């Protein structure tokens, strides 16, 4: 048998551990479906306005939602926006929000956390006190204040969430690095004259990255929730933009139907709302499976 590289072997074992877990299978399946919908959105729901595909097409301006029919298979929401179109293109919006926010937040957080943890001393102290300050205000509240200062819009919401989100990663990566910094293999590399940057990139980060992966996966979900709430309140996506939170906001006045048929407009809330829940659920299930797979206490059993 050919001897595999230990890192590759470990990686294969991790994959095996992850996919033994039913919640990972459900999570990845859901994610796969969403990714497919996002990727093939132009084929599934051809845009009516090619220059701005995120604008939902609408026929007429009647505020009352219309039930599913031949032309609108999921019905129309308030303002006669087609729910099917909004849901399909909203998938792209959700991925855009999640990947942008988590990507920037994780990158900034990992960089600052690695610098603080590895260098220690005054740099560490200064960076951690700044993090403490930002830590003191809840994500949603601080994001709201920043959005108000920058002006409304989905792009501003994404920037605001990225500006707030990095603080988690700093703390986690720093505490991981503090335990790794003094271990023998790092000391050995230092004595051999490897540069600090190389030690961080090649020896420390690969060992400290697992908790960050778990957190990033959970964060994808919670950032999409926060962004959709900001859209729901009216600070995020403008009216008619294909965004799940904004679609829930459109249907908000129709949660209760006319007397005698109180659940008449269920589709206007349940369809976009269900998309948010399933999308977030997919990431949380994956995060949960990763947590089980990476937990050293459960790993080798």
């Amino acid at each position, binding site marked *: 048998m050919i001897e595999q590289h230990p890192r590759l072997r470990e990686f294969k074992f991790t994959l095996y551990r992850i996919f033994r877990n039913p919640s990972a299978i459900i999570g990845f399946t859901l994610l796969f479906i969403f990714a497919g919908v996002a990727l093939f959105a132009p084929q599934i729901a051809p845009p009516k306005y090619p220059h701005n595909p995120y604008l939902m097409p609408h026929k007429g301006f009647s505020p009352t939602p219309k039930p599913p029919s031949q032309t609108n298979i999921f019905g129309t929401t308030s303002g006669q926006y087609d729910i099917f179109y909004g849901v399909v293109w909203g998938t792209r919006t959700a991925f855009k929000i999640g990947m942008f926010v988590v990507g920037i937040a994780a990158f900034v957080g990992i960089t600052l956390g690695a610098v603080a943890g590895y260098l220690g001393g005054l740099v560490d102290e200064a960076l951690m*006190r700044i993090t403490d300050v930002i830590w003191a205000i809840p994500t949603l509240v601080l994001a709201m204040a920043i959005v108000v200062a920058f002006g409304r819009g989905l792009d501003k919401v994404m920037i605001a969430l990225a500006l707030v989100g990095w603080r988690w990663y700093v703390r986690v990566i720093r505490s991981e690095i503090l335990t790794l910094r003094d271990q023998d293999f790092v000391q050995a590399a230092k004595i051999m004259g490897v540069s600090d940057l190389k030690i961080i990139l090649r020896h420390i980060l690969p060992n400290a990255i697992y908790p960050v992966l778990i957190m990033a996966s959970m964060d994808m979900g919670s950032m999409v929730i926060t962004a959709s709430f900001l859209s729901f309140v009216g600070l995020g996506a403008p009216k008619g933009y294909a965004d799940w939170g904004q679609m829930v906001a459109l249907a908000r006045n129709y*949660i209760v139907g006319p007397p005698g048929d109180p659940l008449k407009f269920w589709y206007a*809330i349940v369809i976009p709302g269900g998309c948010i829940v399933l999308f977030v659920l997919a990431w949380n299930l994956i995060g949960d499976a990763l947590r089980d797979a990476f937990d050293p206490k459960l790993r080798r059993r």
Partner: protein
Amino acid sequence: MLAFITRRFLLLIFVLFGVSVLLFGILMTFSPERRAATYVTSPQQAKDIPKIIKQFGLDDPFYIQYFRWMKEVLKGNMGWSLVASRPVGEAFWNYFPVTLEMNLFAAPIVIIFGIWLGTLSGIHRDTWIDHTTRILAIVGWSLPTFLFALVLLMIFYGYFQLFSPGVLSDQLTMFIIENPESFTRFTGMYTIDGLLNGRFDITLNALAHLVLPVSTYVIVVVALNMRVMRSGMIEELSKDYVMTAQAKGADKKTIYIKHARRNALLPVVTVAGQLVALSMEGSIAVEVVYSRHGIGWWLAESAVQLDMPVLMCICLFMGVVFVITNLTLDILYAYIDPRIRLN
């Protein structure tokens, strides 16, 4: 221990200072013209904007404006709220009881339920009890608060016509407005004021209005508490002292409740600060959907109407609450766990 508290206390002052600078910095991203525009009410006054900027020193250097603002804030003057059309400080005490009331009812349920479910899940690890609670926790964690609140409203208000949004029914609100002398508002919380005034119908009505908000909140927040309790329980049960106790013939209940659960509660204390932050965020969504006019609703409404003084006041308030909670928890933690204290 004293040195520990002093250090934490100094840090608290620093963090609060930092928060205020940060918030003021966010406000200062507005141009002086835009900040002056808040004082302008008619188009004719628009030409006065340069004068207003001079008068209030809106183009002074950052630190001068910051200290001027801080002086007013420390005096208790937080500015004027557009949404409430009264001073921010006064409006705050009007909205605060509504939020406090909901949290007072929800917090004990979250804590007790979370600990109970987590313990249960940890003891019966990998059985159907564990799997069900874990699935429920993940699903609950994935539910956006505002959406879940809307669906509950749809079912229980729309379909069953059981609970309605708001804080109190319209007739009772009108009655209180019309007869201010017969109903004294001691605390601003209707459930308690009703009891103090001997009006049990008001208490019952206010409680009925609390059912949906509190359940929304509990179901969304309880997952965090439960998960930490579960993993704490699993970790403790795998330790040697549990085996020793078993070998000595202690019965299961004693081991679970007296030995393991006590130690497993420690990590729960550390996430309590996170719970407080979550509950602040959660109360925004809950209040917006159930149209309860509390701090969270006020914040969302102010954000939409660009009412910056309110945003700053609430951010500061939440910062203070969060920092003080964390300080208390740290001290509590050091008190419970001697390993921290002696370090």
